[in-house]
């Protein structure tokens, strides 16, 4: 069972991490994309912060829905609808469950429904899948997060903008996997799991 307060903390930390690492995310995206992933998410993070800090939430679903809608309407690009769909899907799931593993699994499902990416295509999905697995088994650690991230390096992108590079996408970390790693690191730091 998760508390809204700690979730707020989570999302706040995530926003901070993305903002601090804006240039790094842009750089990763420059290497295999168009260099805007950090700028996109920073814009989204600022909007989410404003939205969430202004509101009182009675239930998880409204909280996730606000985040999802804000991301969808502020981020743009590929990552906007994907992260947005994750949170909107979590909002739906939150009406039935408050188990974090279940919620994040619904989030992953939202991303995959929208973006059609499977494991191994070098997208954010490659960060989400192992994390959701670990959560289910109750052993999400920074190592899991970091290992999955590093694994995207050897993958060849077959979805999204990086797929235009073909083999040349190999050797680079996927920017969306990196921003997802920040999301899950923040989850650990915010202590949501201990809640």
């Amino acid at each position, binding site marked *: 069972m998760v508390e809204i307060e700690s979730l707020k903390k989570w999302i706040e930390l995530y926003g901070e991490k993305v903002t601090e690492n804006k240039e790094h995310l*842009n750089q990763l995206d*420059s290497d295999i994309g*168009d*260099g*805007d992933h950090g*700028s*996109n998410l920073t*814009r989204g993070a600022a909007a989410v912060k404003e939205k969430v800090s202004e509101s009182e939430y009675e239930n998880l679903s409204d909280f996730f829905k606000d985040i999802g809608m804000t991301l*969808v*309407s*502020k*981020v*743009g*690009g*590929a*990552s*906007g*609808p*994907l992260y947005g769909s994750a949170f909107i899907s979590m909002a739906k799931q939150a009406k039935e469950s408050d188990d974090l593993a279940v919620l994040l699994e619904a989030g992953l499902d939202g991303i995959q429904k*929208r*973006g059609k990416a499977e494991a191994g295509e070098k997208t954010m999905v490659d960060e989400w899948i192992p994390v959701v697995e670990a959560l289910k088994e109750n052993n999400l650690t920074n190592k899991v997060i970091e290992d999955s991230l590093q694994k995207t390096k050897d993958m*060849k992108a*077959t*979805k*999204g*903008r990086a*797929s*235009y*590079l*073909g083999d*040349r996408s190999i050797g680079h970390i996927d920017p969306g996997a990196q921003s997802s790693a920040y999301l899950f690191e923040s989850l650990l730091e915010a202590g949501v799991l201990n809640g």
Partner: protein
Amino acid sequence: MKKIMNNPGRIVDEMLDGMAFAYDSIVERIPETKVIHRKHEKNGKVGLVSGGGSGHEPAHAGFVGKGMLSSAVAGQVFTSPTPDQVLEGIKAADEGEGVFLVIKNYTGDVLNFDMAKDLAELEDIEVESVVVDDDIAVEDSTFTAGKRGVAGTVLVHKILGAAAEEGYSLKELKDLADKVVANLASIGLSLKPATNPEVGKPGFELAADEIEFGIGIHGEPGYRREKLQPSKDLAAELVNQLKKEQNWSAGDSYALLVNGMGATPLMEQFVFMNDVKKLLSEKEGLELSFRKVGDYMTSIDMAGVSVTLLKLEDPKWIEYLNAPVDVIGW
């Protein structure tokens, strides 16, 4: 980075305001949105909406007006607009007969426009769409996001715009769009990368004597780098790629667009057109029934050109390409 701007974060807003002010007889900006809408009065026709990341000016807002787009939705530079913005564009364009979306094939655009379509249908607006994927530099396989949408999109706007003006139904527009896109192929090259104002440095690097074939309009990688070479050799390379893709027979009728990337002087574009002409018309014997040269689908301040060929399956398309319009950038 040397640019005429104030705040990179506000560059799109200020651009849209400048555009709406300069051409207020043709377009208006829908308040609080990133939508440029035509002033042309509504007369019960299908609305035509396009858009995408900014940085491709005059695309897409420059093609809004009588005979072309009903509205254009601008995203941040090189970033797809969001679904709520696309929805505003759709709502403005709707004249009761449904709205047709012209989407360039990028994951971001496809996802955002698709979400907008869902939202519009919730508001009882019928929406159809086509995804333009004319960039033959990219392989169209399950291992890529598919071919990219580039300068050929402008010809789609023009032809569909004229057809919509003529009173085509949503369904008819969809059929026409599918046919046009199936006959469309483009390919480009770059001499100098673009600098996204929000990023502050060039999207890639090219040596002083290097060019890249097959580059995308957001600086996506091309298929080969070579030394700078004469215009006629550059033209030959691009024309060869197009030839591999399309089945040319002497006498076939094509529309030809030579498109500048934003920082390429018209002088160079015309020289390049002259070389392309020699290959297509004199050597291959194609009938180039429609020709156009200039900056239509740019990549901020990239130097380079692209060549688009549209096989004119239906002679009516020539009429549509030549039909008068009242827009800023055609």
